[in-house]
């Protein structure tokens, strides 16, 4: 339930909130919840009943953060938590390691290739590109079209077998 990367001691009430927030989705990849993405970092209920939710952006310019914050507040309001504060945490910085296994499967089923471990050092320039599997026909005969695509977190690939262009969720470490 609560990802290992944000392991913490939680009360029953907090665990209940984690469960509720499983229904809050990334507005740009609606098949992923903010839990799947690893964007939700912490939930704390204070003594006065105020709920403090901490989220982290995938990329610094991610325009979805405000929407996600508003969605969290609306969701919790509807479930009987009127006092909610959402904080933004930059450090530790988000990494694709926080994407859950379930999240990766949902991505692929949605037509977006999930991040794969890079061969060698990603900071090395001109390194070999990673082998990315086509989410539509599963072929590994694909090519990188551009490191940048429809959103900051994705790269653009094309499958050489079925010829479909597709998004690849970039590995960010």
């Amino acid at each position, binding site marked *: 339930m609560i990802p290992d990367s944000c392991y913490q001691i939680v009360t029953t009430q907090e665990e209940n909130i984690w469960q509720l927030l499983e229904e809050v989705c990334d507005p740009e990849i609606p098949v992923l919840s903010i839990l799947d993405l690893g964007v939700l970092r912490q939930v704390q209920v204070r003594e006065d009943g105020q709920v403090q939710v*901490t989220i982290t952006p995938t990329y610094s310019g991610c325009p979805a953060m405000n929407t996600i914050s508003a969605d969290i507040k609306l969701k919790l309001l509807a479930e009987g938590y009127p006092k909610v504060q959402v904080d933004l945490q*930059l*450090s530790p*910085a988000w990494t694709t390691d926080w994407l859950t296994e379930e999240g990766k499967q949902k991505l692929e089923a949605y037509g977006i290739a999930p991040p794969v471990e890079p061969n060698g050092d990603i900071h090395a320039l*001109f390194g070999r590109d990673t082998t990315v599997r086509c989410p539509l026909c599963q072929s590994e005969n694909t090519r990188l079209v551009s490191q940048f695509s429809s959103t900051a977190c994705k790269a653009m690939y094309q499958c050489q077998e079925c010829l479909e262009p597709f998004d690849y969720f970039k590995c960010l470490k």
Partner: protein
Amino acid sequence: MELAHTTNTAAQNYSPELRELLFQYTLQLADTSLILGHRLSEWCGHGPILEQDLAMANISLDLLGETRSLYQYAAELEGQGRTEDDLAYLREAVEYRNPLLVEQPNGDFADTILRQFLFDGFHYLLLKKLQNCSDQRLAAIATKSFKEASYHLKWSSEWVIRLGDGTEESKRRIEKALDRLWRYSGELFQMTPVEQELHKAGFLPDYAQLKQQWDEHVAKVFAEATLEVPQNVFMQLGGKTGMHTEHLGYLLAELQYLQRAYPGLEW
């Protein structure tokens, strides 16, 4: 709407002098990514091909994300009630602290690529160091942006090679860009009094070291691109201390138009 940051720094314990220095420096970093981010956004819908149009818009977005984190922090350091929007939209050209390079007009695609390449190398190396900055907030912002900057540098380096070692025409264009823009590269590494003070206080790395690594990267990429590294070029300075080229005023006229015409307007 603004999200509150969780990283509370030791900023409260800073002396007023140190606080002012960090405010000035954070502002300089913010101005730099804002102006370059804005320049790149001017390409949106005009890129030579769709993929590169998207690439420039994406890099612009990364830079603007970094900009917001920096302006928010600068506003907190200043503590005078100004917001990130006030800092971005309600200052005059002479108050901007970005280096001259990033305000240079887009020109053709080769000009934009070369400007980006010269900047990305610096940005990448600086952020790499700032990740360990003793100011926690700057370190957190740098850690976030460093991951993104490595993609930017890869992109611009590949394009310099493609244009330099490409066709006769692409080579002519990138050489022309080099002739036009190289003179602005030195300012990136020229420390201002603010930067020198912060270096002495242990907040900033030695820029001479960054310059050495930058030179090595440029030499490597230029060798592959069959371009020559210009020698003995007079370097233009001034942007980081508020003396800008005429281009910045026009850029700000567009960037700040809405807030100037309709003060306080919100989305």
